[in-house]
């Protein structure tokens, strides 16, 4: 992989230092999000449905007294099947003092990525807003899609925040 095939090195916000990412799976894709945004990881429990909400917003749950909305990333990213079983996990994120949970198929591990392992996002059409993709992480034969989860979640189409 080199610059000649249209990939550019990601150099902003990661000058030389290792960034740690929590990686999780959605269907067969592997994603990474900034570990510092993650508050905790929990098992899935059926949330309280909210009427007239988009289908990927599963509802709200009680997280030790806080009402937290739950977004199913598999539905958001149009994954083929979204089963809820013993391995389904919820990643609780803390973004801008707001707490939100995302449902994923499984959590893999925490990866430290050095800038050399990061590639720019390819210019392709996808369901994910290209602004919300920081880049791609290359780990041998694995490819991580690094998400700017903050941007993704605060997007208007997520319907998590009132339209100002």
């Amino acid at each position, binding site marked *: 992989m080199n610059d000649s095939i249209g990939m550019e090195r990601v150099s902003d916000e990661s000058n030389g230092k290792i960034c740690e990412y929590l990686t999780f799976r959605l269907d067969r894709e592997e994603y990474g999000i900034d570990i510092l945004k993650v508050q905790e990881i929990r098992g899935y429990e059926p*949330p309280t449905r*909210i009427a007239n909400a988009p289908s990927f917003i599963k509802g709200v749950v009680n997280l030790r007294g806080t*009402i937290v909305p739950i977004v199913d990333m598999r539905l958001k990213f149009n994954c083929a099947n979204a089963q809820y079983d013993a391995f389904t996990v919820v990643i609780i994120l803390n973004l801008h003092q707001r707490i939100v949970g995302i449902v994923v198929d499984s959590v893999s591990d925490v990866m430290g990525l050095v800038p050399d392992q990061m590639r720019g996002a390819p210019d392709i059409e996808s369901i994910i807003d290209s602004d919300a993709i920081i880049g791609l992480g290359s780990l041998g034969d694995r490819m991580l899609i690094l998400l700017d989860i903050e941007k993704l979640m605060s997007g208007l189409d997520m319907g998590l925040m009132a339209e100002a």
Partner: protein
Amino acid sequence: MAETHYESGGSSADFDLSQFYQIFFEEAGENLDLMEQMLLSLNLETADDEELNGIFRCAHSVKGGAATFGFSDVAELTHQMESLLDKLRRHELMPNAAMVDVLLESADASRGLLACHQSGNVGQGPATANLVSRIRSLVSGETPPVAVVRPPEAPKMAPTESPAVPQPVPAVAPVASGGLRHLEIQFTKLDQPTQADAIVELFRDIPGLGEIKPITQENIAADARFFEVQTTSTNEDLLDLFAFHVSREHVAIADMSTSGASAGAQESAGAQAVTTEVSTAVAAQGFGFFDGAPGLPQSLVPESSVATSPIAEAGSTKVLQSVAKAPLVSNAQPEAATIRVAISKVDQLINLVGELVITQAMLAQNSRALDPAVYQQLLTGLTDLDRNTRDLQESVMSIRMIPMSIVFSRFPRMLRDLASKLGKKVDFVTQGEATELDKGLVEKITDPLTHLVRNSCDHGIESPQDRVLAGKPETGTITLSASHQGGSIVIEVRDDGRGMSRQKILTKARERGLDVSDQMSDAEVWQLIFAPGFSTADVVTDVSGRGVGMDVVKRNIASLNGTVEIESSEGYGMKVSVRLPLTLAIMDGMSVGVGNEVYILPLSSVVESFQVKSDAVSTVGQGAQLVKVRDEYMPVIELEKVFQVPRYDSDKTSDIMVVIEADSSRVVLLVDELLGQQQVVVKNLESNYRKVPNVSGATILGDGKVALILDTGALVRRSRH
């Protein structure tokens, strides 16, 4: 004067203001601290309006509270401070250092007065006449020369006031009071006699300390040095100075001018030992003396007791020490009665207890299958856990919630005093005192409400003569009411006074250079009175009229995410409604089941419920449903449809009707079942999510699940369209 308020407070049977003293003292202390901080950080050249307004608001709040509780001395002083600050923020005067000084001293004096009230030592606080007159002269625009600092009437200077003389060098300060003293200082048992020579240099190096002359006598021991000293400093100051060179145990100070015996005493070695011992005691106790009353000027210590002999001095030091400590002890006691804890800590506690309750419920569930004969101890333990958890939950909940009556009962006394001061007749009516409100909200709503009630009394209610002329009863009425309404708490202050004059407000706004036009709606015009410094009052009294009240009201309420609405009708009175979000409030709820889901209805809006047959519902036109309830047709709302509840059991239909009332109209909700009534803690959905239509909030049920609370106001409005 100050003592009378205790009596009147106690004698009136219906309420006792003293229960709020502690809150006031805490609030006032915070306000004074805040003011001091802001004064200290105030940049005189570039002081902006926001800072000056902030300082002004602090003084205003303290004044308001002090007046409410009848601490007239504090109210008077802060009123003067407020006058000065008002001129500053209106840019009629430019702030200068003298003003800041006098304001800081006034804040200190207020603190002193408050401390005296708090400990019950009325009358022992610092005198304020001097400060008041100084502020007055500053307000009237005089430059603050020495003449102002030293008033001609030379009042009895109380301890805290003595720093009023701006003397930079503390050692010089006692000149006026202490006078020149003639001392003999003995240094004994010196390791190196040259140490004493350093003392001589000390006197040479420090200007104003005095003169020192060595005394040469034959019988002085080789390790001792005696000096004759003329100084204005106190013994303490001298000992502190000498401590750099000679430790205190080796120093003895005696007065030469009055004590002839000292000359003889030094000749006897035995007497010398006594002197040394006593002065050690002085040195040791001197610390307590100094810590206790650092500002205590020399004049308070009787000259003679200092002068006579070291033994007498030791005695007087002890006395002073106990005097200085007495107020400290009595202060400590009331403070221990309450503690102020960050709201976030209480919230955390509530959440943790909630979790505990759920865990406990789970344990109880799992233990049911156990054989009581085998697991008797475990089961007993679980029963105890059950009871303790409930008690714990109850007490934790009660930390936060207090009824509005706590706030309301502050007002009758204040209004009575105010009305008699203004020569008006006012009846005070309260409604909905039992409405429970979160403590955090209560604390923050008290100040704004005080302002509103004062405003109503001062500006709203007319004088008895005017009322009679206007064809109204002589006695005006101020009503304070609280209620839960459509997912909010609404607190209203109503009066049947003269209302607001649209024309007067517009004129005043133009004078102040605000952008207004005659086409503005009434609501917009009323909003003008929330501008800082806006007032239509013709005369500024110590009650109101400076225009600070509404500005504070608006700011405080906005900080709680609340709104203020004004309705006014000239000649008939006005109503100020403060609407606060339900966040944090506890509510009596009725849980209803629809499909597999549970929703909470505010019990206050539930009128009745009954079972109906499907043919009781009649439709109109496009399918709008109506049901006849006791000769009245009411619109029917199917919660199942509103909330798109999925049906797994197609046979079951909603056949229970709940009549709810909101905004004075009624609708019928169709639900599957009634599950019960319970108190619910209202949680905000918007803190992590967004506003959901027809839902005012959420709560956590006993099993840990989230249930949505219906916004009955929105449902009723929905049925109208």
